[in-house]
């Protein structure tokens, strides 16, 4: 019984400490950037650029295919199903709400976790185990500024870019492909676009920003965890993926309810 209570107590403490440590890591990387901003600007800007290239630019083909598939699915569902319930006029509202506000951000989060989240955690983990992080520190280089800040900023910029692209491809591509559906002729693109509200876009951008903070911080945190052995690296990367997924799903529910 005592050991069970001990375990529960330890887990409860971890649940409180973990988000606090994440918040500390995130804020300390920005504080370090403010303090070190006169140093290594070229290196840090180059690293941000690389992160954006890897997270956003290289992910475009995948985003293109995913967004068109989901867009088509949502458009066809709206066009085919809603008239049957006598609410054909809600097709545009439903499609825009689902695509822009709800599905876009969470699909982007899933893709970014799978591609860049694992890459960040593995790269940092290998650097730690190989002594490269200690090397940087021994050269007076603040790793929060040099390694974490570019990854976090690069991921935030990438998430915004991917969100805009996802929305565009999903609406334009999805609409185009859904033209084959029954009743499609009744639904013109402008009718859908009329239902697109500023709030949908702002909530969507807010969500991807939140997911970007969550994914980049969690992956940096677990990337820096390995101590001695290279076998710790995949374990930490797995943890980074699992926690990123869990926190993004929780944040998505929270933001969907309250925004």
């Amino acid at each position, binding site marked *: 019984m005592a050991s069970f209570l001990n375990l529960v107590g330890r887990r409860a403490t971890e649940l409180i400490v973990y988000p606090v440590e994440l918040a500390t890591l995130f804020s300390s990387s920005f504080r370090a950037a403010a303090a070190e901003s006169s140093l290594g600007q070229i290196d840090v800007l180059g690293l941000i650029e690389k992160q954006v290239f890897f997270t956003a630019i290289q992910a475009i083909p995948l985003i293109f295919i995913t967004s068109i598939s989901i867009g088509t699915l949502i458009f066809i569902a709206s066009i085919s199903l809603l008239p049957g319930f006598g609410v054909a006029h809600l097709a545009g509202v439903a499609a825009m709400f689902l695509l822009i506000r709800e599905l876009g951000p969470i699909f982007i989060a899933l893709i970014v976790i799978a591609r860049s989240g694992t890459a960040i955690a593995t790269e940092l983990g290998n650097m730690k185990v190989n002594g490269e992080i200690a090397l*940087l*520190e021994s*050269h007076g280089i603040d790793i929060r500024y040099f390694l974490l800040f570019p990854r976090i900023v690069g991921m935030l910029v990438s998430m915004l870019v991917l969100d805009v692209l996802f929305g565009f491809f999903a609406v334009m591509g999805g609409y185009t492909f859904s033209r084959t559906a029954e009743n499609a002729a009744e639904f013109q693109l402008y009718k859908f676009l009329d239902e697109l509200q500023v709030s949908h876009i702002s909530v969507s951008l807010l969500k991807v920003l939140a997911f970007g903070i969550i994914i980049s911080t969690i992956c940096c945190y677990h990337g820096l965890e390995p101590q001695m052995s290279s076998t710790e690296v995949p374990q930490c990367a797995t943890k980074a993926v699992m926690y990123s997924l869990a926190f993004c799903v929780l944040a998505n529910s929270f933001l969907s309810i309250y925004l």
Partner: protein
Amino acid sequence: MAAPPVISAEDLTYAIGNRNIVSGVSFSLSKGDVFTILSSSGGGKTTLMRLCAGLLEPVSGRILIEGRDVREFRSTHRFRTSVRYLFEQGVLLSNATIYENVALPLTYHTRMDEEEMRRRVMTELAKMQIDRYKDDRPSSINRSVKKRAHFAMTLVMEPEILIIDNPLEDFDPEGAQIVLKRLKEMNEEKQVTMLIASHTLDLLASITNRIGIMEGGRMVQSGALEKIVSMLRSVDDQKLGFIENSNVI
């Protein structure tokens, strides 16, 4: 008034659990001193080096660099640009070329123009005789070249204090001579203070002016090179057998 020592350790102790790795070590170095600490494996010398570089926190005692506690001094620009720790393994950033590795301290800490930076980096690479490897990645070069690049990355900033862990490990005889020559040059021309840890005195005798001998985490002997060497000659010291094969004795 005499200038404060460049580096001094005061009753330094470091422990993991109940086991003392470094126990009550004290020493003091003036500008230009080259102090080589000798011990067999597990003697505590690497830990002592890491304590001096501020990479580990002592359990008790303190390290003063230029009269300031290393724990506070470590975050200052002065420390970050003038004190350097060299690892036993020639660690380099694996995703950068040799040139980019060596240039990194300059691009980070200075606003040197590209031409001047290129000149400094290429000069350092040439002194280490590895300029032909400048575009290679660390994974494609041998350990001796990698470690010379590690030295070049450190020396390109022209530090005033060098803390070096096993400098001659991984080197072929030629590589060792190149590095020793460069260290000697730094010491003679710029009065660079060096704290070195090694298993053997061997080739290091050519640049060392003071020796400390550690055993079980304690500094059992320390003093001028000639004094310690003559003392070791006069005693039958099997415990310090590791030094008997060195060139000095």
